[in-house]
């Protein structure tokens, strides 16, 4: 232990100042020299500096998981939030498929696991079909009707058409006018998520009367009864990120994230360690890219990936420092 140079408080204040500088901008040449000189002065300086950097970095992690603090900001909200995840891994904004006209598809459209397809319907409305999904388009003189057979689809309804826009999923019917919303099957229930405007949902096991679902609301028509949830706009955006060919994770458990990834990936990801499956994960991935996901998760949690029999097994490193 070196003889202390300055009190502990001074050291910690200096360490905090250097940690902020190095974390937020390039140091000038002068500053770099000063920092080197300061660090060389005492191992306590180095220790305090390492600690300050670790705390700065730790608050990033917490910030990434947190919704409340961000919402507290008076008028500060980044226009798109992808920036936050840029570091996480293999980020590529790519729309798979593209403008496929539905008329060439004789009404029925299906997608494979690793594709997301955007359909422009006759009236100019847009349907974006998630992976492993199927829908049928039936437009006639009285209604614009779409039947979701499987999976999930997002709709952007064109204004100004007098015909109602109706989406049915099993016995649930969603009626919308000039609205953005998604309908999907999730564990056998039908989920309706509204991003813009409002829709009326009728049918379903326990929804006799039509219910209005508004912006940033989600209604789940389940056998046990309908559940309604308010969602933060960011959460709606996250859940519907697949329309851009992306999966976004913002503190979901790694296990849940893997389930979602596997929905699209031809090479499924298996997490063998239950403690790893519970870990909270942040990242953005291109749909279908199970490999990128597995490797990013391995990196984040000091794990490793082994490919066996067409599956990617994610596990902790044998000599991982976290074990």
């Amino acid at each position: 232990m070196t003889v202390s140079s300055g009190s502990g408080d001074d050291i910690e204040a200096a360490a905090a100042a250097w940690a902020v500088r190095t974390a937020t901008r390039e140091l000038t040449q002068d500053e770099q020299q000063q920092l080197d000189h300061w660090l060389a002065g005492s191992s306590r300086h180095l220790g305090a500096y390492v600690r300050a950097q670790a705390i700065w970095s730790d608050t990033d992690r917490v910030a990434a998981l947190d919704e409340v603090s961000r919402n507290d900001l008076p008028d500060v909200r980044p226009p798109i939030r992808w920036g936050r995840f840029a570091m996480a891994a293999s980020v590529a904004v790519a729309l798979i498929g593209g403008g496929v006209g539905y008329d060439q598809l004789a009404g029925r459209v299906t997608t494979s696991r690793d594709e997301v397809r955007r359909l422009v319907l006759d009236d100019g409305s847009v349907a974006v079909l998630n992976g492993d999904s199927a829908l049928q388009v039936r437009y006639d003189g009285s209604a614009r009707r779409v039947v979701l057979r499987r999976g999930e689809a997002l709709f952007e309804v064109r204004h100004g058409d007098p015909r109602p826009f109706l989406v049915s999923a099993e016995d649930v019917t969603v009626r919308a006018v000039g609205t953005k919303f998604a309908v999907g099957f999730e564990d056998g229930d039908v989920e309706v998520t509204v991003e813009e405007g409002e829709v009326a949902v009728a049918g379903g096991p326990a929804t006799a009367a039509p219910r209005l679902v508004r912006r940033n609301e989600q209604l789940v028509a389940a056998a046990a009864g309908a559940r309604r949830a308010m969602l933060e706009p960011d959460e709606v955006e996250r859940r519907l990120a697949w329309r851009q060919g992306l999966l976004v994770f913002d503190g979901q458990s790694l296990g849940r994230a893997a389930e979602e990834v596997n929905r699209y990936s031809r090479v499924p990801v298996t997490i063998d360690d239950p403690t790893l499956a519970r870990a909270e994960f942040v990242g953005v991935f291109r749909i279908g890219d199970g490999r990128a996901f597995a490797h990013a998760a391995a990196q984040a949690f000091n794990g490793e990936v082994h490919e066996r029999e067409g599956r990617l097994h994610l596990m902790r490193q044998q000599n991982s420092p976290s074990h």
Partner: protein
Amino acid sequence: MDHSHRVRWFAREVLPHEPDVRRWLVARLRGLESCDVDEVIQEAYARMWAADLDKVVNARAYLFVTARHIVGEHLRRSRIVSIELMADLEVLNIVDDEVNAHRRLSGKQEIERLNEIISRLPPKCRQAFQLKKFGELSQREIAQRMGVAESTVEKHLAKALRILGQEMKTTADEAEVSDVDDSKFWKWGRH
């Protein structure tokens, strides 16, 4: 591991255990004015930074053992050494898997804790920190928004970090943790 990986490794693997090491040190070093807890912790971070982290199997144990070494060196240099204390230091044994699991699952508590600390920051300090961390603005943007110089923003941020560093010397759930019988996690005494 490159620099930023190492920093994140410290954030993930070392920081959560620091309050426990501090409590242990406070209990051991009571009355030894020449040995300062902050000093031991700083020295421990410095030594761990220099270590080959890829080979560290258990960061919690490593942190404790490093801190113990540092105190041991210090005591050996000083004239008055309590034999009991030396014995205590020799037999430190950490059974930590349970604690590790406990810590890892408390992401929500971490967020609450951070929010609570942030809410108590001085107003300017808090504003700068929130704009930086949650608004993801650059120094320049923050400076414009707050109507101050960029160097002032930096000072606010450094102060915020300094306060966070102070707060993180203890756990939010200090009371809760100490309710749990320590011997469940720790084994003291000779074998």
